[in-house]
């Protein structure tokens, strides 16, 4: 599971109000190289919850992202230093084994072989 996915997911157990962001319990983190696509990153940047991404990247051992969300000029600028970091955090870090933990209930959604299992139990729907 890459952090772009983590940034989209929340705990959706019935009645849960603050199911985002899910805490990452990392057992095994791997890195895979992915082709750099600035257009795609610019498109995605607008949709990202920045704080959640910074925190998630940290829990996976990557602390290069700035604390505060950079403004649009940094994204559009020709200098790709920031985009490269964003690229690495969003697409190249993988949570291979571990769990996503609901901040409200503590419910663990397991991640095995890189696939998060977000299916709810019968009594959680």
């Amino acid at each position, binding site marked *: 599971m*890459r952090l772009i996915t983590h940034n989209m*997911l929340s705990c959706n157990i019935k009645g849960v109000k603050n199911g985002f962001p899910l805490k990452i319990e990392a057992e095994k983190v791997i890195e895979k190289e992915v082709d750099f696509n600035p257009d795609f990153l610019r498109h*995605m940047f607008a949709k990202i919850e920045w704080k959640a991404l910074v925190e998630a990247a940290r829990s996976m051992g990557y602390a290069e992202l700035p604390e505060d969300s950079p403004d649009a000029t940094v994204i559009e600028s020709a200098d790709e230093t920031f985009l490269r970091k964003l690229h690495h955090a969003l697409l190249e870090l993988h949570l291979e084994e571990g769990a996503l933990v609901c901040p409200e209930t503590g419910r663990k959604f397991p991640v095995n*072989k890189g696939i998060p299992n*977000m*299916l709810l*139990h019968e009594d959680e729907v």
Partner: protein
Amino acid sequence: MWFLCVFYHRLLDFRKPEVEALAELFGEDESLQWRLPEHHHNDTPFHFVQLSSEEIAQNIAKRSILVKGMYELWGEGTCYEELKESIQSFPDSRKLPFLTSDSTFRISVETFGKALTFDEQKERIHSLTYIPFEGKVNLKNPDHNFFLMEMDESEESNGLPPIVQRRIFFGREVGFADRKLLPTFQLKSRTYLGPTAMDAEMAFLMANQANAASGKLVYDPFVGTGSILVSAARFGAMTMGADIDIRVVRDGRGPDCNVWSNFKQYGLPAPVALLRMDNNVPPWRSGLKEIFDAIICDPPYGVRAGGRKSGGRKILRGTVDPYTVPEDKRTGHIPSTGAYSLVECVHDLLHLAARMLVMKGRLVFFFPVLRDECGSEVKFPEHPCFKLVAVSEQILSSRYSRVLLTMVKVEPYSDEVEEAARLMHLEFRENHLKWLEEGNIHSSVFKPSTDSSQIQTESKTFKDPKPKYRGKYV
């Protein structure tokens, strides 16, 4: 500019929508104008289409699956004398640049519904001496390709209505489909397959309907073995897939036979994400919207594969009261899932698309239709955020077809839309059994045929209101 667009004689209903979708992708902003040659039926391979430049025509043809060729028409007629007049009256300024002495050319003869011997072809090519070709012939790799296309008046052939009049076309090729993709991607050489893996040709047509391209994010909520996303990835899109069956998305049939390996096999970038979730209660964080450029899927409509949703099979049916999973059994608990009716599945799909697609994003999915309904008006799913732009039917049996629907998001996702979807979601939960019956097409597809002797006597007089062609793909 008008171009002669010649199609392969297959998947007839998918041909014009494919060109229209690609025209949009390559920057054509008006809806396309089509024209038929004189006396031709809509299912003929020969069509004229208006496009704003030769470059667009070439791009469309190259990316398409069903365009045999896109041509600049130099002349047409009902006989070779008429063709000659027509070609001669075509302006020299349009012809001469392609006939220069420093260029190479080739003339090919194509026929539809008839066959010509080699000598007959040669004779026809030699009759074109009135065109001042200055260049050299090069059969392998010419600069310019010319085509002479001929079809005779005929009896009903291959299921097509009879052609009233013979027609001959001569034109310069502008572009053609790269069908080499198909043997490369055909399912029989795919490592990981499921029972409902999408045929490669159809998957490419779906990706074209979705305008899949580089820099875009394409999502399939019923990803299965990933056969649809593979085609979107081939066209450069980033992909993402979800499925409720964890064995399919996570395990496959081993380390080198799973959804990931299907992408690796073709050297395509792996999906951005694969996850297990239930489309009925999706775990998207609140506030997340307009992130996908296209959603492409083949929903489980309960004929070959049925859908499942969370909530517990027996609880949903009402045969047991809601229960709590004991604390010590929660880790590793395998939740029971209930049947997911087609109506609810499509409702959830449209809601997902309304929320998660960018404006002008495309939703492309198959929808089953019972064929005896075809005579009457079929009602396709509707949604206030979407405009239906293409409908292509593929006949699967005498009982039912599947129809590929392409919808474009034209209205933004609003609070009212969200609230309406929430209420409908509760209604489906409340009246689970009623909705399971509604729109259940499995029983109609598999019901035993009524008294067969009666059908035999009636079949001669009873004509199917909708023409159907022989063969699986036509």
